[in-house]
């Protein structure tokens, strides 16, 4: 080995961090080189100073770390429990709300099952009226079919005959204009 060993190599040699072949070469040189021995002595001194300067953490520090960790873990678990309860409460409230809402909807549904008034409210008369001399005949009230409460045949002089049907809805009255040859059976 020519000249001195680089300081970086000596720093690794100090604690056996060099590969074996390099370690042997440095060892052979350092044995005969006072300057490299001085460098090694300085490196060794600073290493010892470093190793001596850090005491182990004392028990008080260790306990304080452990307590803080366990406190947070317990708090986290309680937090999870609280969140779990809160989530369960939200689910229960949601279910209760949905049930109550459906309960409210059941009444309209019952109403909706009633038969819908199917006949139209107004029947437009499309044909021109024909003059009739027939006397007015009022047919007795008779329930004809569900939804229609009464049907009255109305024949007036000069007016076409028509059937007046009152439904279960007082606001809906059906006027049915009769054909010329159409007859209405009366009891």
């Amino acid at each position, binding site marked *: 080995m020519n000249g001195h060993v680089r300081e970086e190599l000596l*720093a690794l040699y100090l604690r056996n961090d060099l590969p074996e072949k390099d370690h042997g070469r440095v060892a052979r040189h350092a044995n005969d080189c006072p300057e490299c021995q001085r460098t090694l002595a300085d490196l060794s001194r600073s290493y010892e100073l470093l190793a001596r300067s*850090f005491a182990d953490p004392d028990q008080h520090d260790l306990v304080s770390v452990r307590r803080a960790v366990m406190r947070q873990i317990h708090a986290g678990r309680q937090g999870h429990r609280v969140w779990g309860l809160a989530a369960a409460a939200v689910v229960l409230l949601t279910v209760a709300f949905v049930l109550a809402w459906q309960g409210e909807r059941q009444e309209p549904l019952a109403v909706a099952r009633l038969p819908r008034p199917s006949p139209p409210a107004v029947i437009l008369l499309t044909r021109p009226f024909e003059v009739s001399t027939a006397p007015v005949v009022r047919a007795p009230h008779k329930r004809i079919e569900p939804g229609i409460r009464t049907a009255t045949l109305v024949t007036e002089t000069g007016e076409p005959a028509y059937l007046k049907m009152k439904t279960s809805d007082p606001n809906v009255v059906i006027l049915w204009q009769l054909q010329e040859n159409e007859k209405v059976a009366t009891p």
Partner: protein
Amino acid sequence: MEMAVSLMCQFTAEPGSIHRLIRKAKAGDVSSFEQIVMLYERTVLRLARRLLLDPEMARDAAQEVFLRLHSKLGKFQEDRALAPWLYRITVNLCHDLQRRSKPSLVVALDFAESLRDSALNPEQSVALLQQQELVIAALKELTPREREAIVLRDLEGLSTAEVARVLRSSEGTVRSQISTGRVKIKRFVMAQLGRQA
């Protein structure tokens, strides 16, 4: 040397009881987790103090390491060694904290407190305190990666290969960081001691 050997054993082979504790802790047994903390708290806190050079930050870092362990316990494989994982998490966490933090002025005070119960006389205590301040100042001269390599190799007693595993680096890179770090510390210490003399 004895300390280094015990650390090496802890690093490479952990007793079966630790795996049993991990299994129980994963199942939700808090007291088993507390026992794991008790087994490793000294290692984690000591490493954090040596890396951060700030006792207050080191306590916070150690707490965070164990809280992370607790949160990731579900994914932790029981047959894996816990010590390397803890070393890695501690180093990474301290690395991040260092990047974010400003230099601390409380280091010397904390070390002075550590001398309170020692059997040294006042003159020896002052001398030791000065040495500690010197070493801390020297460590602050290093880059974070150099300091991590030096602390793991020279203070924690890990082998170069183990340091490389913790730092997720190659052995060659780690060796280079260690040699540069040792030389920087030596130059700083010798310069300061020469000035004092």
